[in-house]
């Protein structure tokens, strides 16, 4: 049976990651997001009381899931719906996740790990297997009952899961499987201790239809009856036992199996073979649910992560929304905030509102420390979150789907100007070009700043123009002035150019608002403002 909580029609498998996920995580600072999302927020009377320790499985799951983009609007909405249900019924999701953990853990504890099984005797392995099947049954019944009790689910994912489970593990099937497992109890629980500490013996009743082989050995047998019966345990050699033996000894055409140790040995071998034969009948059941618990654990872990992400968004006093999918050349959002910055610096983050229609190249300019990079990252983080079905930290957010997202950030700490660095940048760009294609979006943050302004501008101009012509969506933050000016001059009179310019707002007094506003690229520092004011006119008259 399939879980299908992440995708409507298949389990998590070998879906394609983003290209170079390492760079995406590093450049967008996603590790902080994964970490915080793996910690449950405990409330007390509506107040945040404490954070639970991190759940490394949730962390890993988010890491894996967020790095795989969804490809269609339907896929995104499917997941968003499950997230909505999860937010509505967090205890349901945590409950499912918890059952999976306890089942999988208890298997490990009882040594059902594959290695341990291979070390033990076949009989021991069979005992483990039967116990494991019982655990399957118990856990499945719990999950089924939990799902049955839950009212108010609206997502396709969770309602389908409930339906599938009812189909795959109905009460009748459970009863049959349990009966089969109970019939072979004699094999797993030969001696049971009852409440009064008096031992009881579990003994089989087996009827086999049999024939002889040509060489007088017993041939293949047909199982006619199997059950386990409890009987009192008498001390060996005691009077009670002797009486019992005497009584049983009067059964005609029979022989005892426990008097000759060799006969007993072969009897046990036959018992083992019989139980093994019967347990093999549950192969389909075993196969069907073999990966079920691992899958369910993984998939519910993602939604546990989603629940916790929203907890933290609220904890930092931010708004969230479920993004809408629109045309690839459009990008619109209101009050979009950079989530990672909020987590890391615990500050009140400024939100930005932008509306780009039919644009495929966005050039953001402005002086340093104006919030350009933060702005770019906030879009990147929101895109990644949107493309795995999570809500984003904005009042509203609309974007197209980009299964291929590339980041090309200059790593500031070692952006010394030397050819080695440029070489490294070009190499990275070359690698990206190898993988770029349909539905690609690239974020360039101060690219080609590792060479002179003139060279960098030429490189950037050529590459970006080629990318744009190839239909790639480009978001770039740059202070390569001649590059930005050249693009601006070429496109300012063409309303269909597909190019948009934003710049970091700076007030007259030089304070930065961290707002991006539309307009001509400006790189003016405070000093230049003054210069412009005092000698600007002379400059334009051309007589200096």
């Amino acid at each position, binding site marked *: 049976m399939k879980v299908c909580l992440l995708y409507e029609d298949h389990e998590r498998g070998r879906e394609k990651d983003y290209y170079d996920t390492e760079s995406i995580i590093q450049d967008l600072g996603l590790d902080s997001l994964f970490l915080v999302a793996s910690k449950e927020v405990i409330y007390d009377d509506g107040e945040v009381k404490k954070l639970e320790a991190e759940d490394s499985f949730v962390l890993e799951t988010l890491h894996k899931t967020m790095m795989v983009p969804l490809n269609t609007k339907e896929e995104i909405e499917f997941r968003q719906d499950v997230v909505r249900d999860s937010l509505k019924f967090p205890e349901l999701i945590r409950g499912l996740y918890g059952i999976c953990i306890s089942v999988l853990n208890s298997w490990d504890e009882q040594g059902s790990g594959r290695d341990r099984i291979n070390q033990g005797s076949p009989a021991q392995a069979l005992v483990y297997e039967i116990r494991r099947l019982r655990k399957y049954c118990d856990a499945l019944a719990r999950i089924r009952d939990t799902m049955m009790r839950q009212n108010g689910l609206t997502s396709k994912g969770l309602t389908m899961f409930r339906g599938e489970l009812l189909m795959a593990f109905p009460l009748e*099937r459970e009863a*049959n*499987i349990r009966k*089969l497992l109970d019939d072979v109890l004699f094999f797993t629980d030969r001696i049971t201790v009852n409440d009064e500490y008096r031992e009881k013996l579990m*003994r*089989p*009743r*087996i*009827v*086999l*239809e*049999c*024939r*002889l*082989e*040509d*060489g*007088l*050995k*017993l*041939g*293949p*047998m*047909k*199982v*006619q*009856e*199997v059950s386990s*019966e409890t*009987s009192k345990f008498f001390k060996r050699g005691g009077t009670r036992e002797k009486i019992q033996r005497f009584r*049983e*000894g009067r*059964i*005609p*055409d*029979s*022989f*005892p*199996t*426990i008097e*000759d140790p*060799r*006969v007993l040995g*072969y*009897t046990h*071998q*036959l018992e*083992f*073979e*019989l139980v093994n*034969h*019967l347990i*093999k*009948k*549950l*192969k*389909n*059941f075993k196969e069907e649910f073999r990966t079920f618990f691992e899958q369910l654990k993984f998939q519910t872990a993602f939604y546990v992560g989603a629940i916790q992400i929203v907890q933290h968004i609220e904890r930092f006093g931010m708004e969230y929304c479920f993004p809408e999918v629109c045309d690839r050349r459009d990008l619109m959002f209101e009050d979009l905030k950079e989530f990672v910055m909020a987590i890391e610096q615990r500050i009140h983050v400024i939100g930005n509102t932008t509306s780009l229609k039919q644009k495929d190249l966005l050039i953001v300019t402005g002086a340093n420390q104006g919030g350009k990079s933060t702005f770019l990252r906030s879009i990147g983080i929101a895109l990644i979150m949107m493309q795995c079905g999570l809500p984003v930290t904005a009042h509203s957010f609309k974007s197209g789907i980009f299964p291929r997202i590339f980041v090309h950030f200059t790593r500031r700490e070692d952006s010394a100007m030397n050819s080695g660095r440029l070489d490294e940048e070009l190499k990275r760009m070359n690698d990206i070009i190898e993988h770029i294609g349909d539905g690609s979006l690239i974020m360039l943050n101060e690219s080609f700043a590792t060479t002179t302004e003139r060279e960098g501008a030429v490189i950037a101009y050529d590459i970006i123009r080629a990318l744009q012509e190839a239909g790639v969506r480009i978001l770039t933050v740059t202070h390569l002035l001649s590059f930005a000016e050249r693009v601006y001059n070429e496109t300012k009179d063409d309303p269909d150019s597909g190019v948009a310019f934003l710049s970091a707002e700076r007030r007259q007094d030089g304070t930065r608002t961290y707002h991006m506003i539309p307009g001509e690229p400006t790189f003016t520092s405070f000093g230049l403002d003054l210069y412009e004011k005092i000698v600007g006119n002379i400059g334009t008259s051309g007589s200096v």
Partner: protein
Amino acid sequence: MEKVGFSILSMNEDDQAAEANAEMYQDLNLVQIIDDLAAKCGFRVRKLFGYMPANAEEEAYRRDIYKDVKKKAVFDALIKFTESLAALEQLKKKTEKVQNNLQISMWGIRMVDTYCCAYAELARDLKQADPESEGLQVFLKILEDILATPEFQKGMEHTGAILKEIREMRFLITYEKDRMSIAFGEAPGDGAYEEWASSVDGAENEKLENPTAAEIPINELEKACLSVLKEKRPELFKAIQRSKESLETYERPLLKRFEDEILYYLSYRMMQLEMEEAGFRFATPDTNEKKRMEATGLYDLALALLALKDGRKVVANDFYYGEGERFFVLTGPNQGGKTTFARSLGQLVFLTKMGFDVPAQSANVPFLPGLLTHFSVEESVETGRGKLMEELVRLAPMMQDYRTGSYVVINELFTTAANYDAQIMGKRVLEHFIGLGCKGIYVTHLKELTDEQSGVVALQAMLDENGIQTFEIRRGVAPDVACAQNQVNKYRLTYEQLKERL
């Protein structure tokens, strides 16, 4: 009457030829071919290839049987038969360690039954397949006579009846409260547990195997079951106990011989089928005395068997001996396929004599009384004799074989002697064999041997326009080719080649 001396390899055993020269098997790579056959049918077949039929009649006797074996109905009947006997052989080995008397009796019954049934089926199938060869017709008649003897009839009846009863016996084992009880008849209660258990999860309805099924001796649990069964079916078990059935009562030397000898034909047939599957052709050789000896598409079977494994290329050639032509003298470049061609001729003669199909597209091989081979030998460390000495020691008895018209394959004689001496000796050898009315082939690097001599035909191994070996053999004297040029060619280092490569 049983004809004890009957053989499907020979009509008249007094005519059985002496064991062929072991060196011939090495020279013609027959060893590899026979190894391949032995791999299919067991090492027993090897010794059957050590004798060649003594005369044309004996060759035809085998050839006719082989024609029958090629018929699907005959082949299938024989294969089924040999498989039954092979299984019986396995059973014999497996049951050697059985100690329980009851079980020994029972295995005796079972083996006799298998043995008799295998022969009865063979007789039935063969009759249906209607063999045309004298050998198989006579064999079938003898076999039917044996099977009709009261001894066989009674034996089969007796063993068959006991086996039937054992096989049809059904009983229920009930295991509870540390006891097992046994009863004949239907299961009590609803019974169908197996069906129910399978239906729980859509599993297959399978039988529960006896966990000790792989062991032949019965174990203590089975003994305990048997002792209960014995009480319930005393007559049956008494009959088993009293039975002294054993294979030896039924085995006949004549049948034993047949079991071995039939592998001679079957092994070759299996190999042929496998080769044909891979695209190699075989032909039933004609033995028309009035026509010239010839073949088309002839190849080296030993090489082809290797090709089957490693995919190497096998080149086929045509040849004929025209009017008055007796000896091929084959010259040409090293590694040009001379030895392979000589071998394929030797194999052609050998396989024709043995009654088999030959590795060629078509062939006519009039009867040749003998097959002599001489391939250049390595100097022997053991005997301490020089190479020339070794060669002469082997050559002498060959030259004393005065059978008229044998086939002679000689490969590179006298390579260590001075050219002049080698020429003279070589010519003498040729003259000797031609004088004896022999046919043959002489592979040599001495072109002088192709000089005009009555009955000698010059053949050459061909090169292509680039001087690369084609392994093709044609009539004519090989031109002088510089040896070094060959090497250069081989490594594609000529001026033109380098221009191309660079």
